[in-house]
């Protein structure tokens, strides 16, 4: 075919250029906030992409602020515990759904699904009221509970999609090879399921780390206020003058760990995100 090679090269260039556009679009706001966080207070309004002088003053300010360190600690603890519990419960349920024959199988999938679509704003009022009466308002547990609930569907979904891919013949093989059910699980199934569990844990953690609505509705003080809420309420001294630099620095601080995790485990995360939707 005449011109076929040319055509192919043109096409490749087009797609290549497309990639660059996509990358720039994805990175620009991130780069901007990084740049803001490194500018001196005086330079914040200079509209330059690169800081004239790199300064860590905002970072220093952020870490001096007790509100922020408290929020960081709260976020880590609350997201961590929620992840642990949600993944554990999700694992039980996913194992049952994939491996066992029992009447509730469809019920749990349907329940998980409806909660995945459930609007959280619909229950913040009642939760606010209930939590106040039972003493969960403005506590870690008060956030952990809804986080577990709202991440369970994700966990169950990802885990059951992955568990379906595990060749369960191996379990039988181990049993025939002389293993007790427990040994078969420890030596054969657990090592194979670990990556799936890990993936689910990352995504669940990201959800809990990201939540804002529950965080501002069910907390009021440093006792349980998490990072997103803290950033949103970082109103400096007056309402009209926002501490842009501090917010930028705080944003970078809480974004960095997630970005690192995302970059290292991107393959797993993509697999986890698409597992439920594509494979049904």
């Amino acid at each position, binding site marked *: 075919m005449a011109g076929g090679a040319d055509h192919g090269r043109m096409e490749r260039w087009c797609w290549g250029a497309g990639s660059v556009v996509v990358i720039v679009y994805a990175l620009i706001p991130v780069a901007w906030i990084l740049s803001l966080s490194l500018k001196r207070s005086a330079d914040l309004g200079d509209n330059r992409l690169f800081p004239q002088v790199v300064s860590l003053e905002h970072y220093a300010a952020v870490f001096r602020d007790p509100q922020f360190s408290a929020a960081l600690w709260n976020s880590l603890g609350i997201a961590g515990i929620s992840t642990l519990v949600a993944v554990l419960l999700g694992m039980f349920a996913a194992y049952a759904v994939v491996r066992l024959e029992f009447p509730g199988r469809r019920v749990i999938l349907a329940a998980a699904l409806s909660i995945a679509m459930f609007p959280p704003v619909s229950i913040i009022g009642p939760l606010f009221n209930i939590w106040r009466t039972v003493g969960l308002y403005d506590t870690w547990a008060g956030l952990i509970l809804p986080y577990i609930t709202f991440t369970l569907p994700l966990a169950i979904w990802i885990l059951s999609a992955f568990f379906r891919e595990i060749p369960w*013949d191996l379990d039988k093989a*181990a*049993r*025939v*090879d002389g293993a007790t059910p427990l040994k078969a699980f420890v*030596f054969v199934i657990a090592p*194979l399921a670990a990556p799936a569990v890990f993936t689910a844990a990352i995504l669940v953690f990201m959800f809990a780390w990201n939540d804002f609505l529950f965080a501002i509705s069910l907390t009021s003080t440093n006792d349980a206020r998490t990072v997103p809420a803290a950033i949103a309420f970082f109103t400096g001294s007056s309402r009209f003058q926002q501490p842009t630099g501090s917010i930028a620095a705080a944003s970078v601080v809480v974004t960095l760990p997630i970005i690192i995790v995302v970059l290292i485990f991107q393959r797993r995360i993509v697999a986890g995100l698409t597992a439920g939707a594509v494979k049904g």
Partner: protein
Amino acid sequence: MSEIELRKVSKRFTGATAVKRANFTIRDGEFFILVGPSGCGKSTLLNMIVGLEDVSEGEIRIDGQRVNELDPKDRNMAMVFQSYALYPHMSVRENMAFPLKLAKLSNPEIDRRVARAAQILELDEYLDRRPRALSGGQRQRVAMGRAIVREPRAFLLDEPLSNLDAKLRVQMRTEIARLHNRLGTTTVYVTHDQTEAMTLGDRIAVLRKGEVLQIGTPRELYERPRNLFVAGFIGSPAMNFLPARRAEGRLELPPGALEIPAYNAKRWGTGQGPLIAGFRPEHLRVIGERDVSVLWFAARAEVVEWLGADLFVYFDVALKGFGEMDLPEDLDIQRGDTARHTLVARIDPAHAVQEGDSLRVGLDWRDVHVFDAASGQNLTLSNAVNEH
């Protein structure tokens, strides 16, 4: 080494019976095949023997000892799975050592056994590889290796060759046969492939819909199939079937009638129901004397397959006059007066038959099995006298 005895073993799942009263004994050292189409219950039967499924009813005995309640780990049997079920996170060596470690053998003993198995199966070079890095045939061998290191009472193989390509399958087939000769361990082998069953088995059990239809040596099954299903299932190309009916000492077939000598008048039974005549492709001949025992009819070669050592000729027979008979549906015989049915003949490749050629085809009554169309029973077996 052991004898496996099944006493009226049944398996019921919710709403369905997977195995119906299986009752037979697998002898010590025997290579025993369970064969049948998918869903016939052969794998369920195997899983019950190894203990992966409960027995709903009946009893399984190994060397006279009841094992129904024993966990798989306590039965000391080794199994090869269709998927091989190799542990992906372990090397070949670890895969083979796994059952030995569970059995708490000493390390030198484990090394010795793994080395020996690897040598038998020519896996020495691959011991430190992961299963992922092996070819299909090598994975199959590792699965075999994991089975033999245990020196188990019996080998159970569940369609072990069905994931291999045709050539490897034949090669592994002989390898498994050789291994069995060498070790002499009782082996139960599940397959849906009648060729594998015929070539490997000392004895074969043919299953359909959870029922054992016939147990016998490959030769018995081929020459004396007890019913239509076994007749059609064993042999490749499959046995030819034609609708037939009885009429005063003759058997009427669509292409003509076969005379039966008086001394053998009851060979095909005496009932009046519709019949099915079955004959193997090699029993259709294209030359021979004009003997009274042979029905000759004209045919036109539609398709000719020349395979070097064999020549298959396919031709159609009009079912005129037989099109309205009540026949089992799974035979795929068309209904109606204009219907035709394809037969295949296996003839000497020396014949230069070409597509479109007209042939005279002969069928000897001694080669014809007659089945009752309703029950599928082979009437010839019980009634014939003086076979050949």
